């Protein structure tokens, strides 16, 4: 078993006297960097201290202190704990913070998101447009003084509903009788629509130009999506084409932006769990896992021993199911319509049967609780899991590989296409199987172990070429490793209580912040939660794998064919619920 490299604690204060102070607030860790020195300090963090992977960038609005904060979480791809550093700026308009896009290009979308939702202007960002909402939308929704049209109270449970259970339609309380909010004296007939010039200008800027002296060909701009049969949901991309070759590309998202963060901040801690189900809707179990581990970190509670095993079993089953679907969908996108995906869905149904038996729902399981899980696994279900893990799934995985792997068309479509090298992958903060396919053995279950993953014997699946073929094969490797973990977990699982806490509606969460991350089937899924001791999270942020992995898409497909682009989306394994939140 490889143990993660232990790093000596990083002392930024000693290295940068006067520019950095340690964060002394109770419950907080890390360093506060002066805004003026951010770029310099960040460069050192990457180059001197070796934190090459910047996983998350997000903002927090401390309204009472009249401050805005930008929080960065940096890690090493060799493993080990991370480094938190932050910048605090006064809450004046506009809030300005230097962009780190030249140091970690992976911050691109995340900085745009912070601009969109919190109104933090990242100076030096070459393409700072709104990303989830549309250009021209009024306000920055995650600011604490911004209220949504159906606003009722700061925090749930709302007094109007609880404890008497009354309900009035939110529409009746809103002046516009709908989920709408317009500036005072707004006249819909006189206003001018903000068009999408910004998008096309940026596409133009990032388009390769015809070489001097070469044949001068015409380029066309095509919009794929948001309704497109293969974009895996409502993603839209604007592409510039030269014939069939992509020479410029910009993804446009937000078509499924369901305001997860804002709703999460109104909810109580417990109420957030079912919402996390709906992030990556293929893997509600993994999402639950990530969220509860984060809050447990804040609460500093232990998880019941049996529950730990149940969690691992569910998360790994979920991974297997996800990867099977991945393979089926990838085949769909390559043109082998339906047959392989029908095979994949057949196995998925069997896994969903287990989820349904333990949690009551096929997809939206809502199964984890702080300190454990909500229900025990009945014996007959345990038997079903055993049959599935020990007999059926290994055989079916082999069968699928036998059917597909050497198929000539498949090999021709996958081998050597869309190569991502390790350096770029890290640069763009790519995580998960896509990163491991480039030869970087970075798996959080090993690199930064959570739950009880350190007890199991398994290998981190790695492939070396980073092309589509390796991305496809690594999914099979991971299924095999998951089966290995499951086998051990099923053998070792002890009897006992399934929750270390009493069942409760309201949990006490001490003030502070926590950043909890897990290896979801799609990559690093992390939650950043700030508590101020109240029953609701003060700040709740999801760092989704799909969203950040998509940052690499632009550089990956320039120069390739448009037909391969659809397969590339399948390869990145994005899911819109998580991408747009």
């Amino acid at each position, binding site marked *: 078993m490889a143990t993660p490299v232990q790093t000596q604690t990083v002392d930024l204060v000693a290295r940068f006297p006067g520019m950095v102070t340690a964060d002394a607030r109770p419950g907080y860790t890390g360093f506060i960097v002066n805004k003026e020195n951010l770029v310099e300090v960040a460069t050192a963090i990457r180059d001197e201290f070796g934190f090459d992977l910047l996983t998350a960038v997000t903002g927090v609005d401390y309204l009472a202190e009249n401050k805005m904060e930008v929080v960065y979480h940096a890690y090493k791809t060799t493993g080990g704990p991370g480094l938190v550093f932050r910048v605090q700026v006064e809450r004046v308009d506009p809030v300005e913070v230097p962009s780190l896009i030249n140091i970690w290009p992976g911050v691109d979308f995340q900085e745009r998101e912070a601009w969109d939702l919190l109104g933090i202007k990242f100076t030096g960002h070459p393409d700072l447009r709104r990303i989830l909402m549309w250009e021209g*939308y009024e306000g920055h929704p995650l600011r604490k003084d911004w209220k949504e049209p159906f606003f009722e109270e700061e925090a749930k449970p709302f007094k109007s509903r609880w404890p008497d259970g009354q309900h009035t339609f939110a529409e009746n309380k809103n002046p516009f009788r709908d*989920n709408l909010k317009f500036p005072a004296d707004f006249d819909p007939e006189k*206003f001018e629509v903000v068009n999408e010039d910004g998008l096309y200008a940026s596409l133009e800027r990032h388009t390769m130009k015809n070489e001097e002296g070469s044949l001068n060909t015409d380029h066309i701009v095509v919009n794929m999506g948001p*309704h497109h049969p293969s974009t895996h949901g409502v993603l839209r991309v604007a592409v510039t084409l030269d014939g069939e070759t992509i020479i410029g590309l910009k993804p446009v998202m937000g*078509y499924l932006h369901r*305001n997860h963060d804002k709703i999460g901040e109104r909810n109580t801690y417990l109420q957030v769990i079912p919402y996390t189900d*709906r992030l990556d809707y293929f893997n509600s179990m993994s999402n639950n896992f990530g969220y509860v581990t984060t809050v447990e970190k804040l609460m500093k509670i232990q998880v019941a021993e049996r529950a730990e095993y149940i969690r691992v079993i569910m998360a790994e089953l979920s991974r297997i199911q996800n990867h099977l679907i991945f393979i089926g969908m990838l085949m769909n996108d390559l043109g082998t319509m339906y047959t392989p995906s029908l095979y994949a869905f057949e196995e998925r149904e069997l896994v969903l049967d287990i989820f349904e038996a333990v949690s009551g729902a096929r*997809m939206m399981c809502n199964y984890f609780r702080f300190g454990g899980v909500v229900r025990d696994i009945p014996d007959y279900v345990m038997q079903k899991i055993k049959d599935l893990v020990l007999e059926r799934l290994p055989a079916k995985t082999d069968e699928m590989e036998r059917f597909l792997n050497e198929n000539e068309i498949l090999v021709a479509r996958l081998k050597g296409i869309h190569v991502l090298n390790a350096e770029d992958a890290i640069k763009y903060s790519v995580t998960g199987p896509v990163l491991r396919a480039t030869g970087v053995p970075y798996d959080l279950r090993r690199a930064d172990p959570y739950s009880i993953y350190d007890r199991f014997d398994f290998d981190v699946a790695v492939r070396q070429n980073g092309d589509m073929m390796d991305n496809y094969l690594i999914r099979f490797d991971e299924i095999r490793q998951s089966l290995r973990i499951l086998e051990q977990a099923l053998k070792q699982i002890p009897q006992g209580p399934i929750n270390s806490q009493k069942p409760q509606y309201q949990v006490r969460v001490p003030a502070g912040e926590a950043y909890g991350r897990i290896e979801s089937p799609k990559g690093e899924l992390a939650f950043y939660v700030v508590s101020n001791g109240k029953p609701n999270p003060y700040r709740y942020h999801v760092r989704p794998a799909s969203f950040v992995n998509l940052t690499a898409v632009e550089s990956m497909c320039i120069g390739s064919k448009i037909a391969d682009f659809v397969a590339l989306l399948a390869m990145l394994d994005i899911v819109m619920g998580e991408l747009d939140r």
Partner: protein
Amino acid sequence: MENEKLSLPNYNIPEDLENVVAVTTLDRLYNWGRRSSVWPLMFGLACCAIEMIAAQTARYDMARFGMEVMRPTPRQADMMLVSGTVTKKMLPAIIRLYNQMPEPKYVVAMGACASSGGPFKEGYNVVAGIDKFLPVDVYIPGCPPTPQALIAGLIKLQEKIDRQSIKTVRWYNKEKKDGNYVPMPILGPDLIDVRRNADIKQAAAVAKVTQESA
């Protein structure tokens, strides 16, 4: 051919002609054709779309009801299955797709989100139910509805089609020639439903007055 569906009851057709001759009404013939091949638009919005896919796979097999032919283009589709959360940003695209569908066309709201906004109703980017814009024929509750529920909902749609008459359906109504065209909403400071321009202006003016007096 399911004779009992097509033929009117109470007509005695000789046994050897049963598969050749049918005595029926125009309505029955139309509806029988329509209900047996409702082609959905291949269109997924959110989590519910995954259950929609699951409903097409081997275990549930929607094809048994003549509904498996998902069309990627609205021009070949008969039914729009709104499977997931409708966001304000996505809405113009949905309306455009709907307007491009030829008639007769049906709308099924699958899941809590499409019916009413569901768990995300309070979200600032969420449209609280597609029925604020499109005429919904069948609502399917659930979050997500199970494939069984989806199929039950689609059977309900078939029953609805069975009861229609070409004399009354809206798409043959001469007066309402353009009556089914839904005007495109605009993305401004918030979603602008152009049918409600006057309302919005008035409410915004009231808001200004209250602000000034406050």
